[in-house]
């Protein structure tokens, strides 16, 4: 390891976009801290919460953020760090701010309504998973027995797709997915790469297939896969490296075939 070790005991600055509550205006505050060894964004936010004093010496409220697993599998701590969306738990300070005086900028995701400071309400993300029925329909009043076999090949494809943690990175980076506070418009707004990819996962799943047509109907309509503009930012920011653009193309193909079939079989 020839890489120079980050300087211990250095002071770094946090520039944080704050907001006191839904609908309230945003404002910026700056905090200087000496990060602990092997610190990440979350541990620094905890340090700030201990002594919430800005660089101007003004005492303020602790910065609010959302987090859960702290190992990049829950997606709750997703925020915009230095202009790019990612999870804050794996945002290591030694990487992001290796030198004395380095600044780290934190903002809440812009595509979801802010609850407070860095904490956003990702309800629409989950609503969009409901739109494509991103589940296996096995609810019943009696045991359905063993399901059909999955081939090793399809298991390999599914495994990658199933790693989606609904964090919202793909939506934050997407130029076609924009904030919509009016819930009545959610069903007609772009559904997003995550839901398209989950529709692909469950449409290829031997039991999930039962809802295939319903998923394809949803993806064919307004706000469906046709609204993708192929900017392909989603696949680049996905922390799980899920092949989202392949899922979009696969669902493009599936909706094409679905439309031809419905045209000739007269369904719908």
């Amino acid at each position, binding site marked *: 390891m020839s890489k120079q070790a980050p300087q211990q005991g250095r002071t770094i600055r946090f520039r944080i976009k704050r907001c006191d509550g839904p609908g309230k205006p945003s404002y910026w505050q700056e905090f200087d801290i000496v990060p602990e060894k092997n610190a990440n964004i979350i541990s620094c936010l905890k340090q700030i919460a201990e002594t919430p004093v800005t660089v101007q010496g003004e005492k303020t409220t602790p910065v609010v953020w959302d987090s859960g697993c702290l190992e990049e599998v829950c997606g709750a701590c997703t925020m915009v760090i230095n*202009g*790019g969306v990612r999870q804050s738990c794996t945002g290591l300070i030694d990487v992001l701010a290796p030198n004395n005086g380095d600044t780290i900028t934190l903002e809440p995701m812009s595509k979801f309504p802010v609850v407070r400071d860095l904490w956003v309400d990702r309800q629409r993300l989950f609503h969009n998973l409901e739109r494509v029925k991103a589940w296996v329909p096995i609810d019943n009043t009696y045991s359905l027995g063993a399901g059909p076999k999955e081939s090793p090949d399809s298991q390999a494809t599914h495994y990658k797709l199933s790693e989606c943690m609904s964090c919202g990175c793909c939506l934050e*980076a997407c*130029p*076609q997915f*924009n904030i919509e506070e009016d819930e009545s418009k959610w069903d*007609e707004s*772009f559904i997003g790469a995550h839901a398209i990819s989950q529709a692909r996962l469950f449409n290829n799943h031997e039991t999930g297939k039962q809802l295939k047509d319903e998923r394809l109907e949803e993806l*064919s*309509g*307004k706000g*469906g896969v*046709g*609204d*993708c*503009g*192929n*900017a*392909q*930012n989603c696949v*680049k*920011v996905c922390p799980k490296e899920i*092949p989202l*653009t*392949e899922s*979009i*193309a*696969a*669902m*493009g*193909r*599936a*909706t*094409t*075939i679905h*439309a031809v079939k419905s045209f000739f079989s007269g369904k719908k």
Partner: protein
Amino acid sequence: MDNDSGFMNRHYFLLRRLHSLSGIVPIGIFLLNHLLTNASIAWGAVNSRGSQHVSAGTIESVGEITARQVGTFQHDVTFINNMPFLILIEVSLWLGIGFHAILGVYYARTGKSNTSRYAYQDNWRYSLQRLTGYIAIFYIFYHVATLRWGWTFLSPTDTPWSHEQAASTFALALKGKVSGISAGGIAVSLFYFIGVTASVYHLANGLWTAAITWGLTVSEAAQRRWGYACAGLGAGLMVLAWSSLIGFLLLDVSSAQKIEHDLHAGHGSMVETEPHAADETQPLAEAR
């Protein structure tokens, strides 16, 4: 308003796919043909048969190369003008372009460019696709209005385009005066350069994304391979577009007029052997 959005929603998928298709058929196919025709003003220079209807005297005064260029281009334009039901082809093109443009603007307005935050090459491609679409709308409208519909008040010269003097009247509409180039001509030429470049980009990138939309290229590798093909096609079309522009900008208008006069004089008798009504000042076939 409610009925409009209801119609849009009920036929959302069909309209989306027709929008995608219309960019290729008829618009893309037409652009390919159109650029091939126009590029003959440059590549006609190597067409030895291009000057066969031009008199020896004219060839001597304007040069063999110019005679070939103007002769080849005029031949192509005449061929198109002699196509049966040309007006139907034109109207279907205008409707196709109008449909693609109106829906395209509607779709483009649903997005919000974010290249400043996510400066990936693909993200720039996305934003450029929308920008070039807007440019192409203005450019194609100007192009068709001035040269086809005769809205010459938008032109730096007040002369309309004529399919019988195709090269000289277009060069005049581009450069603004017979010799050299006027200030208005510089503006129009720049607009043509930007407009045609934008149109070619829009087609090449549109072909690439259409393959994803329809689900032809699913894997990343397939998308990359098709990307090379589209880039190659785009580069080829760009060569045609730019060489057309350079060809017309370098064309001497009065020479072109002389050549077209010869061609026009021979126009009544396209069959070589038939003697035509002689034009005293222009000795023709016998001089060849």
